[in-house]
Structures are given as structure tokens and as C-alpha cells.
């Protein structure tokens, strides 16, 4: 589903984050990308979503080399992903419903169809009763759940989450991880960048560990709380 072939990445005027790394993520995988701060976890996710371009190598999404894509095709690639960010990136001048509806309106889906899908997504994350609430009135955990609802509303095949539990307490973190696992259980590939794997409770996951410009794929394991 996602294949990195000899991918290198360095930002201008800085050292390589990683050199010629290769790995595969299969459909339905639950993958954690771990590593210290600044190791390149977020960059790896950005490369997958076409937000950043690699310095070398090839990235294949569903066997399509995204480095060969025209600039105009990148937005359509991103629509295949559901993106969750540590800082939520919610629009604070719009209510919960409108925030979740944003990806649909980008795809030209409006009206009843959009309303039905938004409510279904809000229901899945347990925020159906807060569809009129402004994000600022929600707790940190609720804001992240709202961000997850926005990520899944357009039914992506891959969800990418960058430190989704950052800044949340243990209970809220656990809820978020369980929510992401619930989407994984219905076939969605989930890739999460995080530095604290202790938050992964009884979830079976694969790990890609970034260290010293290389990525090590660890065997599948079940997290312990």
C-alpha cells in the first residue's frame, strides 16, 4: 500500500534526516513510527501525504510513484489520506459540524449527503451531541476526536496521525488510540508518529523506528499498558 524505496530526505542547509530508507506498509496495518524528537517522524508522514518531496528515492502509494505526480495531482493524493495533527488544526471560527464537513466540501459533497456523513463521523467519535459546539468550548481530547472525525469523514483508506495524543492526559490519550484502532479494525490503514509507545495499550502494532538516519522495522507486537 505504502512503499518507500531508497528514500532520502534532507531539508536545505541541514543534515540528512534519513538516507536511502526502504520499508512497506500493507493495507490494514497499524503502524507506529517512533524515534526521538527531531528524528524525522513528522517528516516521514509528510512525505507519505505528499506534503514534502523526498531528496531522493521513490515513494509508492498503491503502486503509484507520488514523486512522479504533477503538482496539480497532489491535492487529489491527499484526499486518499485522513490527516490528524498534534495541534488539531481545527478552524476555531466554525462549529464542530462545519469543521468535519470541510473535507467533503473540498470534494464538492454538500447538502444531505454531506450532513449524513458528518453526523456519522461525529457519532463514531462520540461528539454527535456537540455538532453545534465551537471547538474552543471542547476539551483537548474532544478537539482531537473532532480532528479524527474530520480525518475519516471522507472515508480515506489511510489515516496518518502526527502525535495525536500530544498534550492529552492518559485517559484521553487512551481514548484517541482506541478510536484510531477502531478505524483500523474496519480495514483502514493507520500510521501514527509518536514518541511514547506506552500509550499503546493492548493494541497490536508494527513499529518503524527512526534513529541515526535509518529506519528499523520491528516485528508486530501487542502493546502493554
Amino acid at each position: 500500500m505504502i512503499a518507500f524505496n531508497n528514500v532520502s530526505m534532507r531539508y536545505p542547509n541541514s543534515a540528512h534526516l534519513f538516507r536511502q530508507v526502504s520499508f512497506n506498509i500493507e493495507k490494514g496495518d497499524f503502524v507506529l513510527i517512533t524515534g526521538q524528537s527531531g528524528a524525522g517522524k513528522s517528516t516521514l508522514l509528510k512525505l507519505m501525504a505528499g506534503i514534502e518531496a523526498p531528496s531522493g528515492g521513490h515513494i509508492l502509494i498503491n503502486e503509484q510513484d507520488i514523486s512522479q505526480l504533477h503538482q496539480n495531482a497532489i491535492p487529489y493524493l491527499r484526499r486518499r489520506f485522513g490527516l490528524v495533527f498534534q495541534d488539531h488544526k481545527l478552524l476555531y471560527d466554525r462549529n464542530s459540524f462545519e469543521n468535519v464537513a470541510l473535507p467533503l466540501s473540498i470534494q464538492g459533497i454538500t447538502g444531505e449527503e454531506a450532513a449524513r456523513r458528518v453526523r456519522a463521523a461525529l457519532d463514531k467519535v462520540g461528539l454527535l451531541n456537540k455538532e453545534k459546539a465551537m471547538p474552543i468550548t471542547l476539551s483537548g481530547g474532544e478537539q482531537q476526536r473532532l480532528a479524527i472525525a474530520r480525518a475519516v469523514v471522507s472515508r480515506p483508506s489511510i489515516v496518518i496521525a502526527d502525535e495525536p495524543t500530544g498534550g492529552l492526559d492518559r485517559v484521553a490519550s487512551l481514548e484517541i488510540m482506541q478510536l484510531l484502532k477502531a478505524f483500523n479494525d474496519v480495514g483502514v490503514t493507520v500510521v501514527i508518529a509518536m514518541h511514547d509507545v506506552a500509550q499503546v495499550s493492548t493494541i497490536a502494532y508494527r513499529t518503524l523506528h527512526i534513529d541515526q538516519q535509518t529506519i528499523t522495522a520491528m516485528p508486530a507486537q501487542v502493546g502493554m499498558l
Partner: protein
Amino acid sequence: MKNWLNQHTLAIKLVMQRLKSHWLNTLTICLVIGITVTLPGLLFVGVDNLQDASRSIKQDAQMSAFLKPALNGNVIQRLINDVQELPQVKEVRFVSKEDAIKQLGEQFLQKDLLADLPQNPLPDALFITLADTNPITAKSVQDILQKRAEVEELVIDSVWMERLNSMLVLGKRIALIFASLLGIAMITVISNTVRMQVLTHEAEIEVSRLIGATHSFIRRPFLYMGSVYGLGGGLIAVGLLFAIVWNLKQPVQLLANNYQSNFQLVFHLVNIGGLILLASTLIGWIAAFIALTQKR
């Protein structure tokens, strides 16, 4: 197709919501644009009216032939017949010097003007209406009449008509230059406003980009916004011009009546009004486009 329509409808709705939520700001910008457009608009209305007036004058293109004194009636009649037979001439009207002094007296509300004068100073005259407004026609009739011994002086109305036409061309050009300069000012105002809006919605743009919004999806609301500002300003300008023309109509008509003219000040809503709306909307779109192409 449905998705494309949905996206445009959504962008228009979004723009209207944003403009409505800051209605005072929107109104101020539209007023500034409206007044900016009104100024060259007034010039265009003026030129348009003068053009209308010149067209009506052109329809009655005339030439006056003043005759030598002491010509007898037969000679004058022969001249009238000869002129009437010319294909370039539509109509010939003879005004004797007696009738001329009488008409002059009536114009100056003095019934017997001749009583105060030792003799009638006015000549007999032929007032010739030409068949068309072509200057070549006027020139050919002029050549024929200048050779006639009965004619002492010829006054060709087309000379001042040509001057009026030249003045109209100049007026149009000045209006165009004025409109271009104010158009640039308008672009600056709208461009800055749209740019401020872009900065205000930077977070939304960033999120939209990340979750798959295309370049056109992001730009569309701002382009519509610029166009709406232009259209709003254009509507205000059309309203202002309509009010100004309506206000000036009666005094202009009174003035024209004093010069025996039935000239009326008009505002061609479809032509001039439509042009103003189209131009201001287009300028709004261009201004927004410029704002969006500037690097952040």
C-alpha cells in the same frame, strides 16, 4: 459537473457569509469603489450625451448661402431651382431679408427692429439641408455654390460639427485615461482588502491545503470576493450616476430650451450602466487575482 457546481455555490455562499458578517466594512469598501467609478462614469455620461446631441445635429446638416443684395426674384428663384435639383441637397428654404429681420425682431422681443435702423442690414438667404452628413457631400455643394455669382457668402455648418466631433473624441480619450487611472486605484483598494482577507483566513487555507483542497478551491472564494466588491461598487456608481442625471435633467432641459433645442440629458442604463457593472466586476476579479498571486 454536480461537484463543480456545488463547489462554486459553496464559494459564493461562503463569500456572502463573510461579507455579511462584516457588513459595515463591506459597505465602506463598496462605497469607496462606487465613488471612484462614479467620477469617470460622469465623464462617460457627459460624452455619451454630447454624442447623442451631435447625432441629432448631424441629421440636420445644413449649409447657409447668403445672397448678394439687389437680386431680383427671378434670379433668386432660378438659383433655388438649380440648388434643389442637386442630388446632394435634400431641401432648400429661402428666407428673404424682410422675413429675416422680422424673425430677429421676434427673437429679441422687439416687433419692429427695422424702425430703429436706417436700412435692413440682413441679406436674402438660402438654408440648404444636405442629403447626408458626409463631409464630401458638403464640400461638393460648397464648390458648386461658390461658383455662382448670386452667392456672396457660404457658411458650412459641418465645420463646427467636425470640431464638435474632434472634441468628443478628445473627451472620450480623457474619460478613458481618467477611468484607467481610477481603475488602478480601484485595483489597489480591492487587492489590499482581499489580501487582508487572505491573511485573516490563513489557518483555514493551510488546513484546506493539507486535507486536499486544490489551488482553485482555495482561490475561488477570494476571487468571488473581489468580484462582489467590484459589482457592489459598480451598483453604487450606477445608482449615483442615475441620481445625478435625474437631478440635472430639468436644469439642463431649461438651458437647452433657451437655445431652441430639445436636448435632454439621459443616462443609458443598459449601455453605460451595463458597461460600468461589467468593468467594475472584472476589475474586482483582476484585483483579487493580483492579491492571490502575491507571495506571502
